[in-house]
């Protein structure tokens, strides 16, 4: 009897171990598919010897050097593009966080006519089909005069970030965060004669900091990675952000795979660093967007 029990426990343990082994096998296989293109790109950007495409593909560079990085820096104004991306992302993130944190406050904590209508009208734009949006936004941007040569870089940069500022996801996330702030706190501050702007600045913003960080990072990645709208809008090539510049480089020097792969690595690195450092906020921002 005791023997039987022991063998059952052992069999169960075996099954658990086998399941775990199987789980890890699948996890590793999916991870290899997810990450291999990045490894290939990195190896290619560091390699200086042999053919670019080889059977079987290399897993490590044989003669690693920074030569390809130096080459891509000579081909395109990469430093300038990096700066463009930084400027666009900085102002894009700052202003959209400002807009969303401001607008979400009355939507979460004030009673006024039209509140629900406005909130649902904005939410509806997430699913409302807007196929012609690119065209109309281009027309609007031109009509606003932002592309006039005399406005220079400021006008063109404004034209790029403006459509990204009123983020629906950002508004939604901020409203969710504000809803969990106890209303008694606000009432007490109002009793003390604090203005709404002060309440927003001193109570709402500090308490919503984790969500602000989450949204800020999501928005940074979105702006850093965007290329289609900048390519449509920008007249001056020297105003191209990295992602757009990379496509331009790939179009012009299609055969120089090593230099292009070095450019690609330079485009991804800042995002990956940001992602690894703030991973927790990242996932939280995403989860917040579906819950609620």
């Amino acid at each position, binding site marked *: 009897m005791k023997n039987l029990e022991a063998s059952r426990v052992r069999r169960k343990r075996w099954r658990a171990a086998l399941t*775990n082994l199987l*789980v890890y096998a699948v*996890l590793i296989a*999916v*991870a290899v598919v*997810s*990450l*291999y*293109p990045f490894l*290939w*790109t990195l190896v290619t950007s560091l390699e200086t010897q042999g*053919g670019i495409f080889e*059977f079987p*593909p290399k897993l490590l560079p044989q003669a690693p050097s920074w030569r390809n990085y130096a080459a891509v820096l000579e081909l395109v104004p990469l430093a300038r593009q990096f700066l463009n991306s930084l400027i666009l992302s900085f102002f894009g993130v700052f202003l959209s966080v400002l*807009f969303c944190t*401001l*607008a979400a*406050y*009355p*939507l979460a904590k*004030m*009673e*006024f*006519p039209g509140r629900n209508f406005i909130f649902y009208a904005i939410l509806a*734009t997430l699913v*409302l*089909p807007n*196929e*012609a*949006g*690119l*065209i*109309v936004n*281009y*027309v*609007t941007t*031109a009509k606003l005069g932002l592309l006039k040569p005399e406005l220079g870089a400021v006008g063109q940069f404004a034209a790029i970030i403006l*459509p990204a*500022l*009123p983020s629906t996801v950002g508004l939604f996330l901020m409203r969710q965060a504000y809803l969990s702030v106890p209303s008694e706190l606000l009432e007490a501050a109002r009793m003390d004669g604090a203005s709404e702007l002060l309440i927003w600045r001193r109570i709402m913003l500090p308490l919503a900091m984790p969500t602000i960080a989450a949204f800020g990072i999501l928005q940074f*990645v979105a702006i850093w*990675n*965007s*290329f*289609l709208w900048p390519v449509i809008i920008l007249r001056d090539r020297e105003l191209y952000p990295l992602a757009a510049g*990379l*496509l331009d480089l*790939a179009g012009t020097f299609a055969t120089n*795979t090593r230099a*292009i792969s070095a450019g*690609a690595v330079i485009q*991804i690195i800042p*995002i*990956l660093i940001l*992602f690894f450092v703030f991973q927790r906020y*990242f*996932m939280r921002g*995403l989860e917040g967007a*579906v*819950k609620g």
Partner: protein
Amino acid sequence: MNLGGQRNPRWARTLLIAYGFMLPLLGVKAVYTFWPILFGTYLAFTEYNLISPPRWVGLRNFEELFGVGAFGGRGPDRDFWYGLINSLKYVLVVPLIQILSIGLAMLVNRQIPLIGLFRTAYYVPVVTSFAVVGLMWGWMYNAFGPVNFILTRLHLLNPENPSSLLSNPATALLAVMFVTLWKGLGYYMVLYLAGLQSIDRSLEEAALMDGASRWQVFRHVTLPGLRPTILVCSLLSTISAIKVFDEIFVMTGGGPAGSTYTAMFFVYSAAFQNFRYGYAAAAGLVVAGVSLGLGLLNFRLTRGGQAS
């Protein structure tokens, strides 16, 4: 709090303050989100080339798309319908992404060593720009690239004369769809993981205790609990599949032989290459109608996302 009714100064002040807070966002949103929806719909009934003002042409653009009325003799616009059919084929990637990401979410929803590292790994493609993704997969699919290396090893391809999957009209669309899957998997995995973690664990355990098989638990407890998440995810995924553009733009440019030419590619080239903004807007409106229909289908299939 004053709820409606009492129209006193305090009420008016709240109104003013509330709209003051929302003004920057609403202002820009009115210009760049609400206006395109209205003006885009109007443009669909006009002829517009950006230089002279839009000229009202009624249903002419739609007649040209469908090949009826004034365009009865010419037949429907083949490029557009060809693109729309490719877009509809593209939607087939949606169920695949959803099934695989639910599976992956269930795999990573366990407390085992290194699981955080795996979750991170799956998320790296999500934060990568399509500009980079397009380049990387272009290299992966190169005639002598890693994908073909595997295919020749599996004897699926002649090693003497390998050709890129992207340059073969029979496989190009599938190859691009795989990239969409590759980039989207981590994103939906995180969303499903959140959905799984909101399901009451004790329900699943109780069912197991009662002698239900793992499949039965999944079918009757986990899946119904995930339904709201499935609705959100499949809706997002369907809308972006029917509007697929970025992947195509960076990888094939609609080729080879139009095999990856999608509806939004048609809209894009009608507007930015042929400068027929009204016609492009009309095509966009038809795509919008199709995507709305598919959205409703999603709603029906997930029973409105009701959890039970």
